[in-house]
Structures are given as structure tokens and as C-alpha cells.
């Protein structure tokens, strides 16, 4: 276990290193000039050159990369051009907001999608199944931007029970979390439905039923237990991607998280901020994936960490 963990952490660090290195190069290949973004519309050529020197952008890309890596090893990701603060501090300040939103959205998703998927799998080819199918397809088809605006209009303007933007009270979490969860519920419930349908039709369930096991036990102790690994994997993957910033939802609801920060960093070509954001979110995403992997043995005793499943 310890060896497996050490190996996974080493792999993760290598992955993060490759990600931040790739991003370092890509942002510099993209069009746009950070000095011009900082200097504004009236900056002269002389001003822009002075800003580039101050930012270290006059050095060659390998030199800049060397400065970045040496800074990274000391926990220094540079100063954000637009905030004039250490880029890492800016990201860490926003991170709790994104974790809160992603956490609420994924929990809401799990809470709705799993029972819904199980329910429709138990009632396959009925009106309930058809209705849920239509609902989930609709959920998948609605862009988050549109859903967010509709929810805002309905629940913040027409019936003003929730705030329209920001995170000034806990109630501000509801609409953005529901907006994200609507799409995720559609995706995860279909996955649960598919897995459950396959397991409910499996011979071991038929045998258990013939031996007099209750339907409740068949559903949850047999079929769902065997469906839980792909569902947990999907939830983990979705959660990890949300930690990278739920850009559209954060912008629509003025949620002060990583997503809206990334938009701003890209608009202003704020290289240190982009790099810090990528580093932090990739570390988190990989951490979540590792956690999911470590949970597998708890869900399925056949799984041993670092070993293949024995059947």
C-alpha cells in the first residue's frame, strides 16, 4: 500500500510538472502581449519595453522557464500582473469558493442522480423510465449559461428567494450549485441506470432472488454495490473537473472562484496567474483521483490497491 501510494504520488508530481511546463510554453505561444494588457491603451513603446523588463519578459523563453522552475521549487510562482500580489496567494484566496461550489454541486448530484438512476433501472421500459429519460436528455441539452440565466430570472427576479449573484450568504450557493448539478444529474443518473440495469439482469441477482432475498437487498446490497465503482469514478472525475473552475457558472453568478479568475488571467495575459491556477487545480484534480482510487477497496473487496481485480 505504502509503495503504491509513493508510486502514485511520484506519478502525480510528474504529471503536474508536465502540465505546468506545457502551459508555460502554450501561454507564451498564444497571441497577445502582457505588457500591453498592463500598460493600457495609451502606453508608448518605451513604456511597454519598461514593463517587459520589469516582468522579465525580455529574457529568452528557456531563461524564463528556468526562473519559473527555480521559483516553483521555492513556492514562488511570481507576482500577478493584474493583482500586483503573489499569484499563488491570489489563487489560494479564490480556491475555497470553488471547492465550496464544486462540493455542493457534486453532493447534490450524487443525492439526486443515484436514487434517480436506481429508480429508473428498477422500472425499466415503464412510463417512469421514459419520463426520466426525457428529463435527463433535456438536462444534458441545456447549456449551463442558459440554465443559469433562467434560474436567476425565475428565482431571483420573478420570485426573489435567492440572491442573483456572489456569495454573500449561504443562500447564494443554491442557484449556482443547482445549475451545475442539473447537467451532472442528467449524466450520472444515466450512468447509474445503465450499470444498475446490467447488474439487475446479471445471473447472481437472479440466483439471489430465487433464494428469497428481498428486492431492497437485491437492489442496494447486490446490484448497486457492484455498480458503485464506475459511479464513484464518474463522480470523482466530474468533481476534479469542477475544481478547475466552473467557468460559465462562475461568470454568470459572479462567483468569486477559480473559473472567473482564469477568465480574467487569460484576458490580461497574466502568465504567473495562469501558471499558478493550473498548478493548484491540477494538484487538486490529481489528489481527488488518487482519493477515488484509494476508496475502491472499500466499495469492492476484490479490489486491492495496486493489484488487478481477481475474479
Amino acid at each position: 500500500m505504502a509503495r503504491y501510494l509513493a508510486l502514485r504520488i511520484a506519478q502525480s508530481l510528474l504529471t503536474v510538472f508536465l502540465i505546468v511546463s506545457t502551459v508555460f510554453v502554450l501561454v507564451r505561444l498564444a497571441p497577445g502581449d502582457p505588457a500591453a494588457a498592463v500598460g493600457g491603451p495609451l502606453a508608448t513603446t518605451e513604456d511597454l519595453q519598461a514593463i517587459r523588463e520589469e516582468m522579465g519578459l525580455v529574457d529568452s523563453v528557456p531563461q524564463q522557464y528556468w526562473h519559473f522552475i527555480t521559483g516553483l521549487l521555492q513556492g514562488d510562482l511570481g507576482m500577478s500582473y493584474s493583482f500586483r500580489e503573489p499569484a499563488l496567494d491570489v489563487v489560494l484566496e479564490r480556491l475555497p469558493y470553488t471547492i465550496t461550489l464544486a462540493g455542493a454541486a457534486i453532493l447534490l448530484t450524487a443525492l439526486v442522480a443515484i436514487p434517480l438512476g436506481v429508480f429508473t433501472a428498477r422500472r425499466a421500459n415503464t412510463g417512469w423510465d421514459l419520463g426520466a429519460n426525457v428529463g435527463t436528455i433535456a438536462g444534458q441539452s441545456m447549456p449551463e449559461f442558459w440554465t443559469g440565466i433562467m434560474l436567476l430570472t425565475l428565482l431571483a427576479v420573478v420570485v426573489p428567494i435567492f440572491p442573483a449573484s456572489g456569495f454573500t450568504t449561504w443562500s447564494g450557493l443554491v442557484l449556482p450549485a443547482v445549475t451545475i448539478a442539473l447537467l451532472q444529474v442528467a449524466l450520472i443518473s444515466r450512468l447509474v441506470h445503465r450499470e444498475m440495469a446490467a447488474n439487475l439482469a446479471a445471473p447472481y441477482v437472479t440466483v439471489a432472488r430465487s433464494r428469497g432475498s428481498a428486492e431492497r437487498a437485491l437492489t442496494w446490497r447486490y446490484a448497486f454495490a457492484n455498480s458503485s465503482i464506475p459511479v464513484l469514478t464518474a463522480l470523482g472525475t466530474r468533481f476534479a473537473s469542477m475544481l478547475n473552475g466552473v467557468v460559465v457558472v462562475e461568470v454568470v453568478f459572479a462567483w468569486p472562484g477559480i473559473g472567473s479568475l482564469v477568465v480574467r488571467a487569460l484576458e490580461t495575459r497574466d502568465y504567473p496567474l495562469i501558471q499558478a491556477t493550473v498548478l493548484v487545480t491540477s494538484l487538486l484534480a490529481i489528489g481527488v483521483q488518487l482519493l477515488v482510487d484509494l476508496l475502491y477497496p472499500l466499495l469492492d473487496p476484490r479490489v486491492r490497491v495496486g493489484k488487478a481485480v481477481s475474479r
Partner: protein
Amino acid sequence: MDGSGRSRRGMSRRDLLRAGFATSAGLALGPVLAACAGPTGTSGAGTLTLALNRSLVSLDNKLNQFDAHVTVQRAVRQALTRIGDGLRPEPVLAESFELASPTAWRVRLRPEAVYSDGTPVTVADVATALEMYQQVEASFVGNQFPEWPQVEQVDDQTFDLVTQRPLVGLDALMSNILISPAAANLPEELSDGVGSGPYLVTEANRGTGDYTLRANPDYWGPAPGVERVSIRFLPEETSRVLALRSGEVDVIDSISPDSAEQLDGLPGMNLLQAQGTRLVQLFYNFRKPPEHPLSRPAVRRALSLAIDGPSIVRDVLLDSVTPTDGVVPLSLDGAYEVGSFEFDPRRARQMLDAEGVDDLELTIIWESGEFASDAYVMEAVAQMLGDIGVRAHLRQFEPGGDLPTWRQGRGGDFDIIGNGYGNQTGLALTSLQGLFAGTPEMEATGDAFMGFVYDDIAGGITAAAAETDDERRAVLLEDVQRSIWDLWPAMWAFTQDVLLAHRDTVSGLDLLPINSYDLAAVRLEEG
């Protein structure tokens, strides 16, 4: 074996699932229950909430000064003057600000002006502020000063601002220099410290762009009308409009014509519109080689005749702009009506034929969001040019630093650029200097605006800037604007109106053409 296995792990799969569901239920329902019990996002009675479209990174303006921020910045920190009604400078920290000689302005500070900590505003504070603004690289404000004035103290309350050359409009330029205590001022954007304005900062979050201001109990002037002001950053315009409609915010500014149309007529909503100072031009590229058709004023003028400006203003821009009958916005002090854009496609074709121009192809570039409905306007322009046989290729680029590259001629070849040029001083001279006073020296580094370099024009603008006699300066300004117009620097131009929406519980809001208002004058009635 099963039993031993379970006891070794300590948690069964069923336990795990139950715990997972219980936690999910608690965490997911918790906020909902809290929401039902707690308040919504409204800021509460006695609080005025403003939603800005750009994040207020600081309450200082040394590096950036977006017009929507000016209102808030000046509620905390003040300048010697401010731009007031009619775009004329009005004294704030200065009791008087008068031209004493062609190269010296005499300023007397208000004896009652103090910072929020009770210390007085001094001459040394003004001198230090000017030094700090000079030391900041690429200061937005700094580039508007043709020359930095020197402070020469006369007595405790009086000083002269001395320049090498006459600098008319220094009283307007000084409206952008915010004064802070000398000991606390730095050559960077100040994120804390005290100001002399009617409000104090009680909470600030640069990351989210949210600030809370409270009325300064020791303010030296009339007490502000609202006790508490909450400033929020809502980047998405639809969200700002919905936040206003929900009552969560009281004022949203810099709104688009589409949003204004949505809000117009809704109960409880008020719209304010004023002619702005930001000139949007379809400016020709003056770096074309002499043999290129666009190097000839007659061709440039002919292309202008193809543009049906009134239709674009009415149908595309929904009357949210003012056609410009001159080379700078007519709302500016010193601007003159020196010509107007006409629509006459038949004459346009005749003029192009007379110039021997046919099969002309133009590349029109612009930055996304440079002005309202930018893409629709450009598509209309391309179609109108097509009607006179000119093929236009549209090229849009994303915001983020490319614009100066194109302006400086380093981005590649193009023929026309759609570009907005703001003005925070209220002076026509500031815009004339920035747009049309290019010299060969400036062009050597690409700093002449779009390569516009005409010695007689630059000389005329410099002469007007140095003329201290109002009547003679007026003549010089009109002459130079007429000369610029005759060169047809732009295919079409308009001045973008400033639009603001507020709830009808807000009063005393007097929107200025520089897209700002006096926050201390705003009143809030309980809705």
C-alpha cells in the same frame, strides 16, 4: 472469514454508502435550508449597492483608470479638482486654481480639507503625489501630461504648479492626480491608507473586487447622502441586469443598448443616458505606401460616403451613440463642429472612378468588445462598402494586449481599424494630442496613432496647447480641427453615449459624460 475481514477494515461497504448518503444529504440540503432561513443577497437598509463591470483592483488610479471606477475612487481619495458639469474643472481640495502666468498656475488648498485621520492636506502631499505618478511605469494618467509640473511652495496653503511651456488645461489634468498623505504615498497603486473623501473603506477584497465603504464621520465637506456603500464586481452583463431587477443592487453602469432596451419601461427602473467622451472611429491606416489608394484623402472621403451612419445608429446601435460632426467628441471643451459624415453611395462610386480606383479590397480589424454591437456594426459597414464595389474583409481579434501591436504597426497590414479613444479630462486638446499630434520621432517607435504624422497638424495642436489666451486658443483649435477633418482620418465615427440604470429608490445621481457621478450626492430612499 467474512466477519474477520469486516472487523479488520472497520467499515463495511454498507456503512460507507450510508455515511456517504447522509453526508451528501446534509451538505447539499444545508445551504438550501440556510437559504430559506437566512437573508438573500440584498445588502440591507441604508446601503447603496453598486455593481461594476470591471473589477476594482484598488482605490487608486496610478496604473489603471476605467471610467466606471472613477466614481468609487473619488469617493475615497480626492484630487485638487474634478470634472464637473459641462466638462469644466471644479475645485475640490483646491480652493482656487488659477493661471498666474503663462507657465505657472497658482493653487490654494482648502484650509478645512483633512484626511479621514484628521491630518490636513498639505502642499507636500501634492508634490509627492505628482512624483509618485511620474515614477509609475506606463501610468494611464501620466501619458495625458505633456509635461509634469513642478510644485513651488508659496506658503502653507499656497503653491505654484510651474511648467517649462504653457500648459493650458492643467486644472483639468490635475483632476486625475489623487492626493494621499506624502508619507504613505508610493510609486504604485495604493491598496490601503487614508483619503480625504466623503467615504472610508471598511472592507476590501481585491480578489473578488468587493468593497464596502462607510460615510467618513470627519469629512470636511457636506456629509454624504448614504451611510454605507457596497461595491460589487459582476462581470456578466445579463447577471448585472438581473441583479438590478431583483433589487440586489441599486445601480449598474456601462450597460449596453440591448440591456437598456430590456430595462426601459420596467417598473422601478430608471435609465440615465449622457453623451460620452469616448470617440469610436473607423480609422484609416496612415502607414500605407504612397501609391496605395488610401494614401489619397479623396479616396478616404469617397469611402466615407458609402457609410449610412444614421441607419447604423438607429437600427444597429439603437440610438445609443451620438454621430460625431468633427474629429473629437463635440461634448469636449474646445471641440468644434468642422464637418459631418454624409451618405451618398452614388457620389462615392463617382469619386472612386475619378480617382481611378476599382476592385478595391479593404481589411478592417477591431478588438472584440471595443464598442457596443461591434460585430454587427462591422458587418453593416462591409455590406455598405460592397454596395459601392469595395470588398471588405473583417478581422476581429480578442482582447488581451494585441491592440497596441496593431496601433504601432507591428501586427501586420490592415486598412481600417475600429478603435475607441477615451477622454477623462473633458478637454478636446487631450484627444487631439493623443490622436493627431504624431511626429516623425514618435513614428520611429510606432507611437504616432496609426501612423498619423502631419507636421503642420502636430504644430497646430502644440501651438493651441501653449496658447493661454482663450480667444486665440479657440481660433487655433478650430483651425487645426478643420485641417484634420480635411485629411479624412476616419471613414466614420461616433461618440458612445454613457448609459446607467438604477432603481427608483436612488436619487441625486447626476451622470457626467466621463461616465462618472458624485457618489456623495446620491440619496437612497427605503424601497
